[in-house]
């Protein structure tokens, strides 16, 4: 054992190694969390001084239709991206695992690249894809004779959330694909071979061998995807700013808007605390449903 044999006492080592980093960490995460909780209990509209308001803000929050419709948008996005990112990622990883695929590494490298694009560039790029007058999507639709389907995608309240989901799927499916490729790669060859000898090929092999053996990776992917969507902020801010109207509003953007545009900082913090509670609940529920024990190892 290394410990105990050093000349310096343990307390001093803790102070040197752990304390500086953790103090900075506390300043940047723990303090704002406490600040959020404190001001969420205060009435603080505009420039007047904050006033203690008890749980009244939270009562407002529960009755706030926009909060729930924002949450609904988050959940819709979560559903789409779960299907799109995790689902497509899984299917592609499966196809790529086949022996008959050529240039696997090249495909993997290309499909992963969108992950590295910044939100702002991604959003700008897709704004150009969706643009009504000269957007790529409409140009293509008109060229193939589907001009009737051309749309002002980001200004149509009925389609805007779906339109927002597509760039998110495009950016991240390669990421989940790589995770699943890793998981499929860890299945021992012997298992695969003996399964094939027993006549399990194609879908049979997928359902009885590959999917159960990669279940843990699927759970991790679902949780990652969910927590990513609950944090969703910048893509929506840049592409639609929650509009048209509030039809594509998401939770974090709502908190931001109430605080910075409506300058209602007390209530903005109430929303922030609400988001933390809702996301933690969803994450724990997902973990519980999917089998938390397995994930926690």
């Amino acid at each position, binding site marked *: 054992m*290394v*410990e105990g044999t*050093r000349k310096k006492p*343990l307390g001093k*080592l*803790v102070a*040197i*190694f*752990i304390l*500086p*980093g*953790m103090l*900075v*960490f506390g*300043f*940047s*995460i723990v303090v*704002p*969390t406490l*600040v*959020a909780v404190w*001001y969420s209990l205060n009435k603080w509209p505009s420039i007047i001084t904050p006033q203690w308001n008890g749980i009244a803000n939270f009562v407002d929050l529960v009755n706030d239709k926009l909060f729930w419709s924002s949450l609904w948008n988050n959940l819709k996005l979560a559903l789409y991206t779960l299907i799109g990112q995790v689902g497509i990622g899984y299917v592609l990883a499966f*196809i790529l695992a086949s022996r*008959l*695929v*050529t240039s696997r590494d090249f495909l993997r*490298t*290309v*499909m*992963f690249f*969108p992950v*590295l694009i*910044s939100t*702002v*560039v991604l959003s*700008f790029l897709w704004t*150009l894809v969706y643009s009504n007058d*000269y957007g*790529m999507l409409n*140009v293509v639709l008109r060229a193939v004779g589907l001009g009737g389907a051309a749309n002002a995608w980001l200004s149509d309240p009925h389609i805007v959330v779906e339109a927002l989901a597509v760039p998110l799927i*495009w950016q991240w499916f390669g*990421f989940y694909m*790589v*995770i699943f490729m890793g998981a499929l790669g860890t299945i021992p060859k012997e298992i695969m071979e003996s399964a094939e000898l027993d006549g399990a090929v194609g879908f049979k092999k997928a359902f009885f061998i590959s999917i159960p053996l990669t279940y843990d990776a699927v759970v991790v992917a679902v949780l990652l995807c969910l*927590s990513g969507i*609950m*944090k969703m902020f*910048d893509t929506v*801010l*840049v592409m639609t700013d929650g509009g048209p109207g509030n039809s594509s509003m998401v*939770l*974090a953007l709502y908190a931001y808007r109430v*605080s*910075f545009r409506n300058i209602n*900082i007390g209530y903005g913090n109430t929303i*922030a605390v609400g*988001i*933390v509670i809702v*996301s*933690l609940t969803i994450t724990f529920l997902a973990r519980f449903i999917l089998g938390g024990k397995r994930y926690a190892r």
Partner: protein
Amino acid sequence: MRDRKAVVGPVLGNIALFAVAVTCIYPLVWLAYSSLKTENEFVRSMFSLPTSLQWSNYYLALIKSKILFFFLNTVFNGVTTVAVIVFFTFCIGYFLARYNFKGKALVYSLLTLGLVVPVHSLLVPMYIQYKLLGMVDHRGVLILPYLGVMLPLAVFLIDAYITTLPRELEQAAEIEGATLFHTLTRIIVPLSGPILITAIIIVFNFAWNEFPFSLVLNASERVRNIAVGIMNFASDWDTKWTLRIAACVISLFPVTILYVFFNRQIIRGMTEGSVKG
């Protein structure tokens, strides 16, 4: 019959995969050549190639729209963040992996809190906190929220990695009379090379692309990063699509170059980072 079937399937599969790959890469190729068109050409037809290369778009974006300046700000943020975070995470990760001490559980639970709290919901309280302390719009303050976001992930990675290293090397070094500092810098750091590279990649990529914290804490022109710069492009100087596209290409440039050379490390680093975290 059977033979033909056996050929058609894989061929179709490969074609489908390549089609997906093209959709991943074409938008970027499109950004690259569109940035060299004149504004008229661009508005007339989105897909056409430029008839003559307008390199002046880059000059205008870099200098007139100050993207060069924002680029350098982002480099500053990235480099300082990487240096500070990797130093802190190495210290904490090593110590958590090798020592038992009072408060270890507290450290773990604080770090876990950092992982589960949706950080962007903390933008508002963070702004209040930084405003009260007079830290808004100062160069370098972004290190703090970046550290808050990245520290837990990086610490868990390094902790897990160092736990797998054999203790015998450190014990031998100690018996030889090496100080803790020497053991760390001569033995542990070199052995932790791969995981440190992973941490550097994750943190740098995050800092390079980061947008919300910069928007709230570092929006003024003097300290603005490239993401906020592109976001505010229209209001800054002139609404020209091609210039803005050029700015996007500039911001993608460093990441793309790094990716060409280090794509294996980057892919491994980014997936490993989030799965283990």
